[in-house]
């Protein structure tokens, strides 16, 4: 799947929000504080190494060269070598430690976010598009990797370098420090302006990139329509327009950084001129040595790069904060379906009592005051027109959602009071299509009960009459199903799905009638498997076919969110209501 870079409003965090998000992130990084501390120590060491160089050069010049003392010069050189070697070792360690902490943090974030998403109810998955959830777990977390790998290190190192340079310069000569830093106010003002402008430009570019990608995708996806109406030129013209506006935003962002980089470079050399001018004057007065001036010149060469880095980092920090903020929004969503403490009995009646349901963030109820009691072992068919709410009834019976009014109980225990574990053991939903995960056939059946033994798996497959079919595969039930189960036919996927239910051996089976688009051969096998599975269980079928309905003990007709009719086939035909009309329409449409 291609990831869209489109910017939404929550990509633009204000300063206060950014600060809050970062504070929370620091809180989350607590488990790694030792690694972070070690990393900071190494950063400090390697920065010190970088700064000691000019100091040693100064010592070499003033005490060695100027005094014509070769021994001192040699000592200075040896000291320099030692410092560089130590700095190298420290620098290696700083990378490793910072990354260890950062990757540990990202791993924890991945696991935590995923676990939290998994705890959510189906209602949550309805609210969030799957693409959004996937990009939270991938693109949003990955966008922080840059910060973790480079950003943090650069940030800390830059701050240390600037701070230590200042201390060092002050200790060498306060007069020269002032002289050299005369340009600082300009740099600071310019950096702040650059930060603001470049951030705006960066967001603009991201938004245009997103739009451009959408146009591109739309063009490719719609190429048949485009060609059928001979609109290639027009489509390209529109694409060019979007592409040019992307180009313009790139140019704008280049312009924003252009003057800033030029200015920083100019001021860097400019301040060297100042240091030499004023330094020379101070040397003449005898206030400082030549070595000090040289050390200043060398220090200044190192000082301006970190300033530049800091202002560029702001974009990275800000976009990471935006990503984190989106993740926190998910982490702050409390799951609305949580387990109770009671164990459900092995077998019992399932009672739907005065149930109403309204999807979150809508006003119109999908179901109103539905009451059905399903006896243990009964087979109930739910029938009704499109969108009448029959699937919703089925989902409520398995507590995939909670009713907004009324209760659903099993053996007198409200489903909301039951432990999720015992609920999933008693009530199993078989979805319309057999959804397969990566892994083998056995792995896929085991999804239903992680602790099942191989024998139990085989029993479950055998119970629905599918074992022979899969044993005939080269690797038997250990055959890899490949992506989305493409190795298996639709019917075989359905069999896996049914085997899962058989493995759990539930009291209640909820079926969303599952025979769509199967080839005639497997269709029979799937139907037989289904029949075997239903034996001795309470079954609720969301039915679309007359044959299924005819096999049911009772039929519930749901219309416009209400239970319109409830009874056996004969009873309902007798009444001559909606079901009777439906049944006769069905009968007529069948080919004679």
């Amino acid at each position, binding site marked *: 799947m291609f990831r869209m870079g489109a910017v939404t409003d929550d990509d633009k965090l204000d300063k206060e929000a950014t600060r809050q998000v970062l504070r929370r992130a620091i809180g989350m990084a607590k488990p790694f504080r030792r690694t972070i501390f070690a990393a900071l120590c190494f950063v400090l060491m390697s920065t010190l190494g970088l700064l000691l160089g000019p100091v040693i050069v100064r010592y070499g010049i003033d005490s060695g060269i100027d005094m014509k003392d070769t021994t001192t010069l040699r000592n200075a050189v040896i000291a320099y070598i030692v410092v560089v070697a130590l700095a190298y070792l420290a620098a290696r360690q700083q990378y490793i430690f910072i990354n260890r902490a950062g990757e540990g943090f990202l791993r924890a974030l991945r696991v935590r976010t995923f676990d939290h998403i998994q705890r959510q109810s189906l209602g949550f998955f309805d609210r969030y598009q799957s693409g959004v959830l996937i990009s939270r777990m991938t693109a949003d977390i990955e966008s922080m990797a840059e910060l973790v790998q480079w950003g943090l290190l650069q940030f800390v190192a830059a701050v240390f370098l600037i701070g230590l340079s200042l201390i060092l310069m002050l200790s060498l000569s306060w007069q020269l420090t002032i002289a050299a830093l005369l340009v600082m106010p300009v740099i600071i003002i310019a950096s702040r302006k650059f930060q603001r402008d470049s951030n705006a430009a960066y967001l603009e570019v991201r938004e245009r990139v997103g739009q451009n990608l959408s146009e591109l995708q739309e063009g490719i996806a719609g190429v048949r329509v485009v060609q059928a*109406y001979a609109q290639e030129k027009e489509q390209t013209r529109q694409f060019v327009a979007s592409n040019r506006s992307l180009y313009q935003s790139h140019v704008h962002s280049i312009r924003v950084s252009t003057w800033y980089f030029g200015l920083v470079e100019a001021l860097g050399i400019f301040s060297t001129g100042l240091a030499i001018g004023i330094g020379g004057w101070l040397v003449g007065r005898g206030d400082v040595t030549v070595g000090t001036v040289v050390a200043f010149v060398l220090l200044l060469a190192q000082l301006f790069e970190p300033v530049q880095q800091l202002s560029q980092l702001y974009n990275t920090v800000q976009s990471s904060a935006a990503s984190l903020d989106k993740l926190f929004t998910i982490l702050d969503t409390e799951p609305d379906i949580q387990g109770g403490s009671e164990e459900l009995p092995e077998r019992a009646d399932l009672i739907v009592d005065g149930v109403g349901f309204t999807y979150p963030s809508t006003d119109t109820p999908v179901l109103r005051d539905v009451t059905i009691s399903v006896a243990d072992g009964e087979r109930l068919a739910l029938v009704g027109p499109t969108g009448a709410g029959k699937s919703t009834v089925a989902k409520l019976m398995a507590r995939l959602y909670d009713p907004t009014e009324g209760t659903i109980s099993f053996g007198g225990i409200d489903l909301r009071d039951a432990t999720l574990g015992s609920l999933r053991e008693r009530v199993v939903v078989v979805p319309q299509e057999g959804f397969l995960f990566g892994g083998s056939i056995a792995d896929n059946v085991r999804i239903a009960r992680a602790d099942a033994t191989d024998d139990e798996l085989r029993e479950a497959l055998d119970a629905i009459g599918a074992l022979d079919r899969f044993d005939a595969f080269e690797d038997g039930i250990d055959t890899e199903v490949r992506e989305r189960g493409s190795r298996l036919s639709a019917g075989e996927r359905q069999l896996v799905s049914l085997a899962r239910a058989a493995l759990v051996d539930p009291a209640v089976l909820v079926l969303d009638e599952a025979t769509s688009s199967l080839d005639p051969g497997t269709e029979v096998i799937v139907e037989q498997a289904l029949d075997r599975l239903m034996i001795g269980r309470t079954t609720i079928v969301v039915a679309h076919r007359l044959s299924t309905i005819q096999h049911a003990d009772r039929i519930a007709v749901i219309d416009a969110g209400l239970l319109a009719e409830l009874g056996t086939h004969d009873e309902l035909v007798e009444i001559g209501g909606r079901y009777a009309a439906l049944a006769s329409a069905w009968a007529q449409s069948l*080919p004679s």
Partner: protein
Amino acid sequence: MPAFDADHTTVSTWPLLWETLRAQRRNLLIGTMIGLAWSVGKVASPVLIRFGIDRGIRDDEMLWLWAGLIAFAGLFAGFFTAFRRFYAFREARWTETRLRERLFGHIMSLHIGYHDRAQTGQLMSRSSSDLNQIQMFVVMIPITLSNLAMISAVTVILLITDWQLALLAFASLPLIQVLGSRFSRAIHPAVLAVQAEQAELATVVEESVGGVRVIKGFGAERVQAEKLRTEADDIRRESIKAARIRAKYLPAMELLPQVGLIAVLWFGGNQVINGDLSLGALVQFNVYVALLVWPLRMIGMTIAFAQRAAAALGRVNEVLDIASQVRNPDHPVDLPTTGGAEPAAGFGDIAFRGVTFTYPTMASETETGGPVLDGFDLDMGAGQSVAVVGATGSGKSTVVRLLVRFYDVDAGSISIDGVDIRELSLHDLRRAVGIVFEDTLLFHDTVRANIAFADPAAGAERVEQAARLAGAHDFIMGLPDAYDTMLGERGFSLSGGQRQRIAIARAILADPRILVLDDATSAVDPSKEHEIRDAMATVMAGRTTIVIAHRPGTVALADTVVLLDHGRVIAWGRHDELLATEPRYRDVLAAMEQSDDEERRDLSDDVEATIGGD
């Protein structure tokens, strides 16, 4: 604006870049010249620093002049570094922009057979990440050229000042470059490994979100959580591996110049003590060595970028190199017209003669292999309507795809109003045939633009008239912004039936002499089906129409029915005649009934998902 030519081919990798850059050579040259000016400023400042120290400070001569000159050199270098950057980045973006437009135009013009096999994601990454890699290389061109100039100038100056010391100072610098290119080679696979692990994690997340009903139904959260932990651990492991590579090379590259500085301090210091070298010259050496670090490192980067850009260019070129297999004739013939106000009135004959066609083998279609159409014949007079009926895989949709030359026939011919369609320009052919596709694609644009797709210049009146004929006007007026409502993936979402009616309006506005309705009533709420049928009947009146029917209700719209089996016409006549005389026709209709039910069931799910989603 660049020209888009479907037949543009045979550009191999580097000539493609060369050709692209040639158009920008003026600005690239300016960028390089500016870079040269910058390097003058950069090179001058250490010399000035040396004079500042030797003459200004030590000899106390004209100190302020030297200081002033250094400051000036700074402003000079700063000014030009800014412009170099501006030109380099802007030109690189321009290269990217133009290549993307060329690629898009080319993709739009490629035959549908290509698109059947191509993956959208692949084409997307050609036009985004691959072009970005090329862009990153183009940025480096003016920068590297002026860096090279600077490196040579510095080398010459240092050699003149003191060649022994110069060699000493430079000894470590080539190492930086070596390390740089080694680093690129080592880090690239490591980064790819991280990306591969990220993709595996994405797969786990995707299946967990997609299969959430299964997971919730069986309480299998823990199984997926375990999988995710494994993948998260893998990402961490690979990332730390990459970090170790960075740890190995980056600090070394950063500190190597210091080795040169140490050597300069030791030997140069001794020379100063002996009076062979001035202190200023020593500092100058130091500053120069520091100055060369970045340009040298960048040359390493440029090489790595060039390698990546070459690979990206190769991939882009692969797409550009494909010539459309459906080509415009060299000397297109015009379709006959009346020459009056309604030029196409009374026209619209179609003749399929012995048409045979086999799809090029595709990974996704396993059952094919033989010809889809095998000696297919069909004659239609102007204004006639025909329903093409057949089981799945009988070839009925292929008939339409051949008619608009999405593919070319393998044998036989198709002609419209007596002209072989291969002699018509693609534009004329496709404007003569209007298709309402099975799956209605709406663009992210207004309702108006979606209807006026065939003729963007169409006025509001024509759009509204088309919408009225298609029975779409009333619901459009009920949309938040009526005809200005945005549609498409990120816009207002319409029901299946509403989408179909927009598609029909789109075909009406195109005013083709031949209309094709490819099962235009699937995925429509049954209660709305008759409305669509009414709309279709209105449009079909007096126009040659082919209906590809998948359900009985649509079949009844046409004058005659053609029953297709294994790529051949096996029966032909009126609906009721066939129903009475042809058992195979009854079988096909019965099968339609069945799948019809299933589609409706799928639909009922859609409706609930929509309700739940909002």
